[in-house]
C-alpha cells in the first residue's frame, strides 16, 4: 500500500469491568473508500467506531488522522476535525424538531446584525436545507420539518440521522448500522447516498450486518472478531460465504492463526 | 364591619397560635372582621411585608404585628399613611414612626429574671463553679433569641460584651450554645450534644418550654438529677412542668393579653380616632412578665405555679 490511510487506529484496548470490548484492535481507512466493518454481535464494532469518533476513550492504543496522532476528548473534537458519525443508538434530542436536530451544534445564524450581535438562528434557511436533504433520501413521508423527533417512527429517525451525517461530514463519515431500521426503499436510498458521499471524495466507514449491502458498496471489508481485526478482504476476492465464515469463526482466513 | 389584621412571625409556635386565638375571639366579641397572617420563618420579613400590603389593600382599620425585623418599617409607614392604626405586639419596632404603640413584654427582662433566679438558687459558690448549657433557637441571631439568651447570662452574672449577638461571652462557665429549633426534638438533640461535650452541666437555659422538655429527656436519659432547667414563655404546659419540677423556673408572658388589648385599641380608634397610650415611664405598653417557680429565691420576685396556671397564656 503506497497510499497513506486517512484514519488509522493501532492497538486499541477497551475494558468495561471484566468485559474486554476491544483487545488490540487495528483499523485503517483509505482516502475516498468505503470501508465496511462486519462482525458478530458483541464483537466490538461499535466500541471501535466510538473510539474513532471520540465518544469513548480507549484505555490503550493510538489513533492517527492524516498520519498525525489525535486525542479526541469528546465527539465535539472529532466533529471539529470533520468526522461525522451516526451512532447505533441514534443521538437525537427527542423534544427538538427535525431541523433543530440536524443542525445541533452548528446552527446557522441570520446574516447581518441579527446574527452577529443578537445571534439569531436562521430558521427558514435551516429548515429548507433539512427538507432538501431528507427529500434526497426519499424520506418525505415526513411532512412537517418542525415536527419533534420523538414523533417519528424508528426508521424515519434513522433517516434523519443519516441525512445529518451525509450533509455535514467533510473528512470522514462513520455509519453504525445505518439501515438497520430502514425499509427496502429507504435502505436503497441510503446506499445511493453513501455512494454519493464517496463520489464527493469523502471516505466512509460502514458497519452493517447486511451482507448483500456490504458486498454491494464496500471497497474493502474489515472483519472484526472477538475485539480485534481478524483480516481485511476485498469483495472481489472473496465470496459472501467466505466473509460470513471468517466473521463467525467457521473458517480461518489464510495467513491468520486465531489468537483468542 | 371594620377589619383588623394580625400578623405573627409564624403559625407554628404555640405562643403565636394563642395570640391569634385571643385576637380572633376579641375581634368577634367586638364585632370586627378579622384576618390573620403569618410569616414563614422568624427573621424573614418578605412575607410580612406582603401581609401588610394585603391588609392595606383590604382596607383594614388596624394592624397588630409581631415584626420579624425592622424591614417591615417602610410598609408599616405606608399603612399608617393610609390611616391604619399600627400596633406592634411582643417585639417593639426600632423606628417610632412606624408604629402607633407597642404592647410587649421585655424579652431581655424575661431572660434576666431566670438568670437571677438560677444564680440565687445556686448560691455564690455554685455560681462560680456552674457549667451552663445554652439551648437557643438557631444561629440566625433572631431578636427574641438574642434578648432572652443575653438576658439570662447577664442575670446570672456573666459578662456579655455584645448584647446584640449570641455567644460573644468568653466565660468558661458557658459550655456551649446549641440550636434547638425551639422544639422538643431539637432540645433533646442539642442537650445530648452538649452533654457529650461536658457531662457535668448543671444549669440549662432553654429558649422555650418545648425545648426545655427535650433537654429534660436528655438529662433523664443520662441519669442526671438536680440540674437547673430554666425557660421562658409560661405557657400552660410549661407551668405544669414547673409544678412537676421538670423546669425550675420560667418567665411567663401574656400573648392573649397583648392581642386583646390590641383589638381593644383598634375598636377605640375606629370609634373616635383615639390612639392608645404607653405605660407610665415607658415608651411602650408593658403587658408584663412574671417569674413562675415553686422554689422562690430571695430577691427575685416570683409567683408560684398555682398562680401561674391561673394566668397562663391569659
Amino acid at each position, binding site marked *: 500500500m503506497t497510499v497513506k490511510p486517512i484514519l488509522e487506529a493501532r492497538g486499541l484496548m477497551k475494558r468495561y469491568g471484566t468485559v474486554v470490548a476491544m483487545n488490540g484492535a487495528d483499523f485503517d481507512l483509505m482516502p475516498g473508500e468505503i470501508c465496511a466493518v462486519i462482525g458478530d454481535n458483541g464483537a466490538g464494532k461499535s466500541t471501535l467506531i466510538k473510539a474513532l469518533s471520540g465518544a469513548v476513550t480507549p484505555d490503550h492504543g493510538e489513533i492517527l488522522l492524516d498520519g498525525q496522532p489525535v486525542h479526541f476528548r469528546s465527539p465535539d473534537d472529532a466533529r471539529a476535525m470533520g468526522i461525522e458519525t451516526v451512532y447505533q443508538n441514534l443521538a437525537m434530542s427527542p423534544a427538538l424538531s427535525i431541523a433543530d436536530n440536524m443542525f445541533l451544534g452548528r446552527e446557522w445564524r441570520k446574516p447581518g446584525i441579527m446574527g452577529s450581535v443578537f445571534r439569531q438562528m436562521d430558521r427558514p434557511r435551516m429548515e429548507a436545507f433539512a427538507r432538501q436533504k431528507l427529500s434526497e433520501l426519499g424520506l418525505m413521508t415526513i411532512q412537517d420539518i418542525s415536527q419533534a423527533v420523538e414523533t417519528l417512527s424508528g426508521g424515519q429517525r434513522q433517516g434523519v440521522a443519516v441525512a445529518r451525517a451525509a450533509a455535514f461530514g467533510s473528512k470522514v463519515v462513520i455509519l453504525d448500522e445505518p439501515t438497520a431500521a430502514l425499509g*427496502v426503499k429507504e435502505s436503497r436510498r441510503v446506499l445511493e447516498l453513501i455512494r454519493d458521499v464517496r463520489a464527493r471524495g469523502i471516505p466512509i466507514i460502514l458497519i452493517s450486518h447486511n451482507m448483500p449491502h456490504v*458486498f454491494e458498496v464496500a471497497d474493502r471489508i474489515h472483519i472484526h472478531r472477538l475485539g480485534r481485526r481478524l483480516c481485511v478482504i476485498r469483495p472481489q476476492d472473496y465470496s459472501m460465504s467466505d466473509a460470513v465464515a471468517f466473521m463467525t469463526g467457521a473458517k480461518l482466513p489464510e495467513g491468520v492463526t486465531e489468537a483468542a | 364591619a371594620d377589619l383588623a389584621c394580625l400578623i405573627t412571625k409564624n403559625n407554628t409556635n404555640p405562643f403565636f397560635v394563642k395570640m391569634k386565638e385571643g385576637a380572633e375571639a376579641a375581634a368577634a366579641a367586638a364585632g370586627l372582621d378579622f384576618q390573620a397572617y403569618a410569616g414563614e420563618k422568624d427573621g424573614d420579613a418578605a412575607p410580612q411585608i406582603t401581609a401588610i*400590603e394585603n391588609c392595606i389593600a383590604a382596607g383594614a382599620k388596624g394592624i397588630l404585628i409581631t415584626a420579624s425585623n425592622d424591614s417591615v418599617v417602610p410598609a408599616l409607614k405606608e399603612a399608617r399613611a393610609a390611616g391604619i392604626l399600627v400596633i406592634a405586639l411582643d417585639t417593639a419596632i426600632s423606628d417610632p414612626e412606624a408604629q402607633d404603640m407597642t404592647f410587649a413584654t421585655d424579652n431581655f427582662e424575661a431572660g434576666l429574671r431566670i438568670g437571677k433566679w438560677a444564680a440565687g438558687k445556686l448560691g455564690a459558690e455554685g455560681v462560680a463553679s456552674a457549667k451552663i448549657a445554652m439551648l437557643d433557637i438557631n444561629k440566625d441571631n433572631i431578636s427574641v433569641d438574642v434578648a432572652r439568651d443575653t438576658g439570662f447570662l447577664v442575670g446570672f452574672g456573666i459578662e456579655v460584651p455584645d448584647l*446584640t449577638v449570641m455567644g460573644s461571652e468568653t466565660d468558661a462557665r458557658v459550655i456551649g450554645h446549641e440550636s434547638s429549633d425551639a422544639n422538643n426534638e431539637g432540645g433533646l438533640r442539642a442537650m445530648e450534644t452538649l452533654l457529650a461535650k461536658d457531662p457535668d452541666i448543671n444549669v440549662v437555659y432553654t429558649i422555650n418550654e418545648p425545648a426545655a422538655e427535650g433537654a429534660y429527656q436528655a438529662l433523664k436519659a443520662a441519669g442526671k438529677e438536680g440540674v437547673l432547667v430554666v425557660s421562658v414563655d409560661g405557657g400552660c404546659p410549661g407551668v405544669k412542668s414547673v409544678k412537676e419540677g421538670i423546669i425550675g423556673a420560667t418567665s411567663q408572658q401574656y400573648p392573649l393579653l397583648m392581642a386583646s388589648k390590641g383589638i381593644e385599641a383598634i375598636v377605640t380608634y375606629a370609634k373616635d380616632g383615639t390612639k392608645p397610650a404607653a405605660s407610665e415611664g415607658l415608651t411602650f405598653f408593658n403587658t408584663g412578665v412574671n417569674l413562675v417557680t415553686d422554689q422562690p429565691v430571695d430577691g427575685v420576685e416570683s409567683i408560684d405555679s398555682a398562680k401561674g396556671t391561673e394566668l397562663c397564656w391569659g
Partner: protein
Amino acid sequence: MSTVDEPTKTISDFEATLNKADTAVATFEKDDKTLTHVLRAQLRKNPTLIPALVLLVSIIAFSIVAPRFFGMGALSTVLKQTTVTGFIALAQTLVILTAGIDLSVGAILVISSLIMGNLAVISGLPVFLAVLIGFGFGGLMGFVNGVLVAKIKLPPFIVTLGTLSIFNALKLWYSQSESIRNADIEANASGLLWFGQGFNFSGASLSYGGITLILLAAALWYVLNHTAWGRHVHAIGDDPDAAMLSGINVDRTLISVYTVAGLICGFAAWIAIGRVGSVSPIAFDTVNLGSITAVVIGGTSLFGGRGSIIGSVLGAFIVGVFNTGLSLAGVDDYWQMFAAGCLVIVAVALDQWLRRASQ
C-alpha cells in the same frame, strides 16, 4: 446473489421496481375550524396559554369571592409581591430546562444582597460598583454549581443541596447575622433602593422591578428560542448523552447555564433590596421552593427539555394571586397552606391534561 462464489455488485432483484415507487406522503388530517379544534391547535402551538388561562380564571374567581380583591390595587400589589420570586423563577427555569434543579438560588440571592449592602452602606463604595461586585459573586456561586454539576458529574440536586448549606454558612459568617437597616441604606446608598420605586396610574402602581422582570423574561425567551445556545440548553435537558454525541459541548453549556442563573440571582438581589428596603441574612428563605413551584405551575417539565420562561413568570403570578386572594377572602391560615398545596397539584395536573387533550 445468484451464484455463491461471485461477489454481487448489482441491486438485489426484488428492489428493481423501486424507481417506480410512489412518492405520496402520509396523510395529515387538517384541523377543522370548529371552536374546539381551533383552541386545540392554539394550545398545541402555545402551551404557555395554559398558565395564562389559569391565571385569568383565578383572578376572575377571586374577584367574585373576595370583592376586596377586585381592582387594580390588589393586582399591582400581587405583581410587587411576586417580583423577586419571578426573577428567581427565571433562573430556576434555565436550570430546570437542563433537567437540573438549583436549591441554592435563595442563598445566592441573599449573599449577593449582603455584599451589595455591606459594600455600599458600610464600606461606602459607589452603588454601581457595589452592585457590580454583588452580581459578580452571584455569577461566581452559580459557576461553582455549574462546575460541580458538569465536571464532577454529580446530580444537580446533590450539588445544590451541598452548596445551599455551604452558602448559608458563608452568609451567616459574612454578615454575623446582622441586618442592614433601611434608614442606613436610605442615608448612604439610596441607589440600592431604586428598583423599589415606580409610577402610579389610576390606583395601580408599577415598580421598576416589575417592569425589569417582564423585560428580562422577554430577553430570555428570545435567547432560548432563537439562538443556538437556547437550543443546546433544551437538547441537554432532553437527553445529555445524545447532546454530547451530537457534538454539543455539554460541560461548557451546563456551566454557562448555572452561571447565568447565578447572575440572575445576583440581579434579583438588587431588586430584593428595593423590595424589602433593607438587607437581612435570613430573608427569602422560602424563595427556593417558591421558584420551583412557579416553574412547574408554569408548565416546565422537571425532567428537562420542555418548558417556557413566560410560563414561569405566570406561575409566580398565579401563586401570588392565590395567596393574596385567599387572605382577602378571609380564609384561615391553615387552609391557605392547604389550598397552596392543592394548587400545585391541580395546576400541574391540569397542565398535563390540557396538553394531552390538545393533541
